[in-house]
């Protein structure tokens, strides 16, 4: 009975790990979307001439911004997203490793239960 409780506990651990991994996957997806959008903005700003009028939407107000300032802000944003993506990637590989280990653990426990059940069935036949 205690073995069964331990097994349930390990299965729950695996479920929790998989849920966490899903969260990281979603986070990475959002990062990729933000990265793509920022890259597009950077490309457009790079095409602008020096006298172009650039505005930034802050709340409900459009505020005039210097072109070079806008370029550097987007550049910094790209760097930030890039470092965040690397952090999330590291977390994903770490949690994936833990998931694999936990899954193996659960499967091994399952196998040992099956073997015990088979042995018990054999003993009953005798």
């Amino acid at each position: 009975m205690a073995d069964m409780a331990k097994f349930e506990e390990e299965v729950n651990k695996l479920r929790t790990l998989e849920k966490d991994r899903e969260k990281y996957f979603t986070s990475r997806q959002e990062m990729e979307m933000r990265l793509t959008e920022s890259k597009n903005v950077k490309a457009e700003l790079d095409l602008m001439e020096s006298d172009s009028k650039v505005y930034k939407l802050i709340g409900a107000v459009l505020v005039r911004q210097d072109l070079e300032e806008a370029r550097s802000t987007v550049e910094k944003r790209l760097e930030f997203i890039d470092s965040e993506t690397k952090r999330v990637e590291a977390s994903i590989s770490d949690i994936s490793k833990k998931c694999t280990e936990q899954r193996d653990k659960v499967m091994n426990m399952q196998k040992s239960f099956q073997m015990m059940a088979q042995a018990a069935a054999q003993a009953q036949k005798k």
Partner: protein
Amino acid sequence: MAEEPKGVPLSELSLQQLGELQKNCEQELNFFQESFNALKGLLTRNEKSISALDDVKIATAGHTALIPLSESLYIRAELSDPSKHLVEIGTGYFVELDREKAKAIFDRKKEHITKQVETVEGILKEKRRTRAYISDAFQTKVQSQLATMNTQ
């Protein structure tokens, strides 16, 4: 040299495993379908912007128009310079451009989104094919199990 991971034939999977696989495939299909619909929506919005540029082309300085403040509230306004357009380029940035440059931005957006639509469309076709394979394997498995039960 590392060996390439070998796939497991669908026929070797249990009903439960096939069911799981079918569920995962369905989830992926839904995700890509949503992405496809969102991209199509973006294309439509972009087309509207392009046609709006054409509408403003005939306007002159002093031209009056009704400007929407909300979906049900409009205000009468006068165009001071119809040759200048404020175009959103993303992440809250807007640029003031003439008609040609504004059109060029929308054309680039259109090209970019169209490429993504084509990519997602290809993935959708592949996922639908996979779903059909899994569904067939599932049906075959069910029928073979029923046949086995009947013979017993």
